[in-house]
């Protein structure tokens, strides 16, 4: 059963591939994507075929030479210009909102973050590494005759971007332009507008057409799997979002008809982004009023994002006060649940299958006395008001699983050590993406083991570290040093 928002059939946008600075469709095929939130809204997407892929690969390879000729300052100017020009049209905003179910105000906010990324990333790299005569490099500290200059890795990038965060393509593109790399992006069918806009604005600003290409295909067709392998084989760097299992199955391992296995990742530089399940750990002495807003904002601003805060392990003395503050905030926000296309909406839609699962589990666990619902109710198949849950069960799935919904689960802990230990254990073997530690005791934090890629101290889990993500120091993964020894 579909929930109807509008009664008119809308075929709002048609997307082609973006290859070599042009809209291209060589397969002659397309597929229709319907919004699961707005059943009358659909878009037509040109299906990428092998000819499109080969054209994109060729363009990216050829553009490499032109990109290398640009100085760092020129590349930074391109990003600055792109930042100024970046904006979503009305149709693009509609597509993003109706594809993701997120409120239009938040989508616009993320659009602003894209503009910031284009401005800030090259500045951060310049500050960290240094620039001389247009090249990234610096003198090695305490060595007066030793310098390191950094060249981009030789080869193109194949990036597979997710459908839950409109900033990802821009993030990767910002890196590529800053370093002078080229690539092909395979984006989600729900993210075409932002992906293509993020790339096009850079090409329009002067980055070589052909350096950045965007393709998309219907991943439900098994025959299309070979397109991934073609792109992986042609690239040096693979930048992939998705669980390790998904990435390995779709992009890495191919079983041939004769039974042999091919590993398409061998000899590649692979940047994985497999995790989320961001959590918070509250220290004993921390005051509820100092952290309630950070927790609230981290969990509910963009709940489908990988760094959205999903669970809190709270050892604070003010646990009840914190809970009460959060209940008030969550209840207040509930009034703003509605149609994400409306500006005043702050709580959007959620995948109906996910909501079915979440509410089903809540019901089961409530019956067993393992879970309490402080706020939140189901409004429709595709919407609920924000859920605030508490549990006494340290093994609860609501403490270890990332549900891309408006949801936060709290567990009371006796001590900071217990809170951190439970946060680490419930993460499982894979690290959490981010853990916000709400504590002012630096020594305690640094002496503790935190099973996460990022540690935010008194900061939102949703703060983005542009230079690092999920165990990757991007600069050193994407560049090669050239060492200069100079006669002094």
């Amino acid at each position, binding site marked *: 059963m579909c929930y109807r928002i509008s009664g008119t059939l809308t075929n709002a946008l048609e997307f082609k591939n973006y290859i070599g600075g042009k809209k*291209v469709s060589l397969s002659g095929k397309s597929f229709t994507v319907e919004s699961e939130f707005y059943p009358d809204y659909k878009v037509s997407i040109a299906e990428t075929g092998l000819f499109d892929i080969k054209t994109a690969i060729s363009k990216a390879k050829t553009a490499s030479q032109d990109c290398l000729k640009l100085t760092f300052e020129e590349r930074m100017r391109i990003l600055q210009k792109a930042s100024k020009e970046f904006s979503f049209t009305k149709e693009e905003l509609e597509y993003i909102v109706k594809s993701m179910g997120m409120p239009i105000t938040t989508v616009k906010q993320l659009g602003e973050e894209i503009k910031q990324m284009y401005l800030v990333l090259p500045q951060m790299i310049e500050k960290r590494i240094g620039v001389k005569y247009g090249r990234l490099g610096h003198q090695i500290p305490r060595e007066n005759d030793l310098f390191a200059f950094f060249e981009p890795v030789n080869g193109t990038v194949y990036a597979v971007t997710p459908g839950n965060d409109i900033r990802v393509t821009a993030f990767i593109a910002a890196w590529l332009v800053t370093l002078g790399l080229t690539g092909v992006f395979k984006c989600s069918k729900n993210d075409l507008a932002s992906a293509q806009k993020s790339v096009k604005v850079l090409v329009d600003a002067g980055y070589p057409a052909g350096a950045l290409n965007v393709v998309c295909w219907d991943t439900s067709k098994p025959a299309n799997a070979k397109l991934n392998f073609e792109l992986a084989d042609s690239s040096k760097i693979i930048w992939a979002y998705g669980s390790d299992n998904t990435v390995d199955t779709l992009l890495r391992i191919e079983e041939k008809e004769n039974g042999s296995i091919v590993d398409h990742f061998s000899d590649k530089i692979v940047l994985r982004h497999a995790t989320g399940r961001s959590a918070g750990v509250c220290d004993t002495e921390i005051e509820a009023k100092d952290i309630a807003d950070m927790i609230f904002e981290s969990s509910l601003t963009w709940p489908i994002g990988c760094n959205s805060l999903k669970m809190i392990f709270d050892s604070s003395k003010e646990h009840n006060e914190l809970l009460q503050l959060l209940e008030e905030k969550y209840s207040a926000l509930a009034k703003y649940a509605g149609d994400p296309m409306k500006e005043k909406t702050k709580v959007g839609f959620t995948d109906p299958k996910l909501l079915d699962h979440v509410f089903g589990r809540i019901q089961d666990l409530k019956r067993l006395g393992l879970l309490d619902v402080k706020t939140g109710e189901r409004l429709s198949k595709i919407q609920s008001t924000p859920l605030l849950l508490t549990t006494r069960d340290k093994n609860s799935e609501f403490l270890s699983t990332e549900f891309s919904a408006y949801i936060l689960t709290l567990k009371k802990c006796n001590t900071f050590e217990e809170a951190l230990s439970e946060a680490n254990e419930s993460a499982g073997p894979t690290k959490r993406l981010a853990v916000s530690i709400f504590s002012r005791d630096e020594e305690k934090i640094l002496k503790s083991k935190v099973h996460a890629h990022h540690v935010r101290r008194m900061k939102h889990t949703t703060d983005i570290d542009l230079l690092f993500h999920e165990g990757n120091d991007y600069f050193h993964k994407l560049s090669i040093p050239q060492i200069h020894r100079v006669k002094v």
Partner: protein
Amino acid sequence: MPEIYREYSRGKIKVNAFSDIQKLPILVKDTAKHSVGFREKIAKDPFVLLPTDLKRAATIYKSGGTRGVATPTFITAWDEEIESMALAKCFQYMKLSHDNVFLNTYNPTHKGGAEITKAMLSLGAKVVPRRTTDSAKEVVETIKNYKVTAIAAVQGPITEGDATKKGSGIDFLSLVEEGQDVLEDNLETLFITGYTLIPEIIAWAKTNDKKLATVLGSSEAIPQATSTIPGDICKYNNLHILNGPHYVEVVKQESGELVPVKRGETGILLYTTIAREGTIYIRYAPGDSAKLVANEGECDCGIKTPIISEIKRIDIPEDTIAAGCVIG
């Protein structure tokens, strides 16, 4: 006449006009219910297709060879000349001329490869043959260095994995991968063969504003049909049947007889090598089907012959009336 026509060389049927050819039985590769094929005979003696009265030397060109047995066609220098001239005419229909620098990626030892080069030379074009050791990358370098404006390449269906290297030509897709920019900057015309022009290559040509055409031919008979540029009905995969040097028909079975198909109908493709010193094929069914999409005179391009399309490899139905090859 080749030995396979021994039965008919006794003068039982007189052929004075094309319509008489239509009375002759068809020749097939494989023996079936009503048909006697020559494949088994060739497997024992490949010279059964050599005319017994041929006095000139002949080159033996072997076809692709499905089921492990290639068909050897005996071709004299004169036959090559005739076919090359006919191919040159097709190239003229594609607006190729002495102004072109033409890169032939076909293997020059392949009959098509040799005749393509001859055809373009006869138009006065500069021809750059691909060395058999040249990879796609080296071909792209040649296009760039010699400012090649037209190219002969192959492109089979990409769903079949590596593109079929028909005639050992370079597949166009590998050229795209190696040098899309070079192709965009230099090429004006693509001559691509491979049964049909796949939709992707048509889209590529349109997107990059390049002329594209193809010719139907095989090592047994080149050319049989051609598309033209700019073309009216006869664009891309819609090919004008050529009345020389080979007589081409599309027939179907009806009431126990083989009759020409009507417009819109699909039938078996036959050809007769009427201007040939070497191996003569009379109403030979190589195993292709075609659809008649336009009758004589319907196309405004200037060529009056009928137009066929949707050429596919098929298995000749078991009960096809053939009996063109009566082996003693």
